[in-house]
């Protein structure tokens, strides 16, 4: 029997979701963990994860449609299986009766997380386990304690279940160590050996793709291959910004205020979005959504990837609030303690490699955003001021934009607006 995948509740206030885009089409082979579609909720655009292995047999809700909570989105099953279009669900507002009535109508495969529903003693329906890892509770606990990635362990128990022995064996052999990426991969960059050192630069090895790396790979590949990027850059005079920053940090040192250049850029971006709001938008297949609030995200590098925490409503916050929030989000990100709503829902993204000495670069758009800002380093160089060549400080900002949403002129207006506010940074204080 085919599994009907329904519109899940992706935020606690959600009643309908907009099916932004199907990532799979009918006939595609899908497996558990694959992303099937992008769904926009009242909060953010999220990916709809598949919990079954099989073939995407039928799409019930086309891209662009608004779908009530619990209504059928698609069916996944064996190739050639016939699928009946499910009867439409009752109005999503009906909160009260959900405890019993709808469950009894369609017990199998009704929710996106039905994995626990089938008793283990039903070997006739192994497919209901999908791609889940079969592991005993004890083995699971041990794997967590010992930092072993159970997905890399072969189970020796009944039906391939991973049992305690398997985890102990994996521990002994040293295989299947979770997070080995960060430990071995991260150290290589600058630490380096002594000058003239001989021997291999590192041990040749393969490292399993972590969940985070998998997400980065998938999303950025999709972004770079499906979004028509175009790139603009602009050089700004950074002296006023640096001067104001120094003045504020000095004057407010006792209050614990320490603004970074990036704080000005985040707040400046929100201000520029207010002036050129067409950039604060998202492509949704059959429509373009223009967003009322500037939720500015910023990329934070982690040992094994990166994440983009979001300063919500940056347009309505003071630079000091933005700074404090960015600081705390950055710390949470490094500690891997961000909650989903702290890294989803951004409408515009800022990526800064200035601290690494990069003069300029063009980041890949972070969907569903329409644009991303690349921030380079502050460069001290000869500039022409009032007809004189003098020593100046400049900063190059770049914009990678989605041409489906933002045209060249709009992108240019945005960068011009950003230049204007950053070169008169006192505007950001009012």
């Amino acid at each position, binding site marked *: 029997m085919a599994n009907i995948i329904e519109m899940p509740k992706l935020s606690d206030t959600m009643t309908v979701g907009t099916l932004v885009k199907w990532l799979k089409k009918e006939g595609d082979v899908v497996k558990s963990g694959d992303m099937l579609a992008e769904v926009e909720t009242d909060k953010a655009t999220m990916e709809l994860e598949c919990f079954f292995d099989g073939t995407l047999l039928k799409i019930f809700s086309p891209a662009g449609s608004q779908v009530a909570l619990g209504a059928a989105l698609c069916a996944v099953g064996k190739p050639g299986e016939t699928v009946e279009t499910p009867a439409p669900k009752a109005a999503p507002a009906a909160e009260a009766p959900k405890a019993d009535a709808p469950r009894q109508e369609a017990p199998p495969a009704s929710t996106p997380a039905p994995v626990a529903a089938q008793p283990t003693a039903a070997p006739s329906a192994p497919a209901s386990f999908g791609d889940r890892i079969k592991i*005993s*509770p*004890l083995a*699971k606990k041990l794997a967590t304690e010992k930092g072993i990635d159970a997905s890399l362990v072969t189970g020796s*128990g*009944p039906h391939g*279940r991973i*049992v*305690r022995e398997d985890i102990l064996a994996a521990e002994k052999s040293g295989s299947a160590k979770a997070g080995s990426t960060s430990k071995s991969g991260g150290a290589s960059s600058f630490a380096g050996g002594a000058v003239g050192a001989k021997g291999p630069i590192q041990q040749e090895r393969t490292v399993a793709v972590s969940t985070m790396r998998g997400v980065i790979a998938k999303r950025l590949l999709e972004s770079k291959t499906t979004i028509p990027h175009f790139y603009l850059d602009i050089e700004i005079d950074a002296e006023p910004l640096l001067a104001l920053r120094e003045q504020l940090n000095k004057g407010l040192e006792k209050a614990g205020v320490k603004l970074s250049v990036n704080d000005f850029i985040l707040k400046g971006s929100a201000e520029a979005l207010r002036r050129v709001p067409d950039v604060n938008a998202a492509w949704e297949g059959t429509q373009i959504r223009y967003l009322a609030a500037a939720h500015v995200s910023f990329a934070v590098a982690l040992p094994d990837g990166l994440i983009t925490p979001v300063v919500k409503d940056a347009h309505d916050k003071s630079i000091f609030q933005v700074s404090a929030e960015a600081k705390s989000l950055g710390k949470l990100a490094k500690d891997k303690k961000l909650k989903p709503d702290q890294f989803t829902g951004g409408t515009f993204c800022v990526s800064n490699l200035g601290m690494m000495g990069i003069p300029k670069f063009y980041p890949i758009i972070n969907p569903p955003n329409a644009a991303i800002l690349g921030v380079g380093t502050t460069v001290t160089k000869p500039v022409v001021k009032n007809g004189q060549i003098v020593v100046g400080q400049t900063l190059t900002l770049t914009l990678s934009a989605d041409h489906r949403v933002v045209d060249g002129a709009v992108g240019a207006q945005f960068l011009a607006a950003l230049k204007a506010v950053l070169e008169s940074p006192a505007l950001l204080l009012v």
Partner: protein
Amino acid sequence: MPVITYREAIRAALSEEIERDENVVLLGEEVANFHGAYKVSDGLLEKFGPKRIVDTPISEAGFIGMGVGASMLGIRPVMELMFWSFYSVAFDQILNNAANVRYMSGGLINCPIVIRGPANGGTNVGATHSHTPENVLANHPGIKVVVPATAADAKGLLKSAIRDNDPVMFLENTILYGEKGEVSDDPNLLIPLGLADVKRQGTDLTIITYGRSVLHSLVAADILEKEHDVSVEVVDLRTIRPLDFDTVLASVKKTHRVLIVEEQKPFASVGSQLAFMIQREAFDELDGPIHRLATIDAPAFYSPPVEVEQLPNPQRVLKAALAAVA
């Protein structure tokens, strides 16, 4: 220590307690002049006389009801059921009255009655004589349930049961009556109710069991050790209620694999309750699903060779144990 039979151990417990406390009496069908249908009370009439050892009519509802009433007035009756299968005739007296007296009187009246007799299959006495009602009894708060497997446990537990101030159901086994074991002749040696006994230490599998199934489990455990290199721990519950869950839990945390063996129909049995409690309290300690071996779910088979296969036996335990450690 003297080696005596399970039957003699029960007789010794009765004799010591009747001697110790003038309120202890033994009543039941054929317990006096015929010395008990299974000769448990052999010699007691001669020793204690007809006031203490009393034959009753074939009327379980009547004499159990009388015993419950007597116990409320301070007598400590030990009532023999020729077969536990006949408890259902006195269901109201046992499970409606005796079980609830202390609670419903606000603790003012207690009911120190012991009801004892054999509850087992395996002797081809047919479906109506082969019931094992420990789960039914244990389902009633206010009732204590004891199922001893060895002669020593039978003696020590029966003495505790007689001295207990609540109704205690004491389930013996006709096949065990002839089993011998070392039993202390110390009249002050009691085995408290609610204390399980680890009959065999092991590291790979916990078999939780009680009654005659303990013996089957011990035989299977030896085979598992010798032929399959599986080290089995055998936990004998001894008392179903109060249940010594601490001992069960400690063993589960040691071996991480569980097999429950019970001579009892599987539906809503003691084993199903245990399985629930174990997964609830020790989910993360389990390295495999909890397995259970029970009597095959049907009325007791009359055919002797088939009845052997209906009940737990060493071969069935062995097979179930191998599945549980897979």
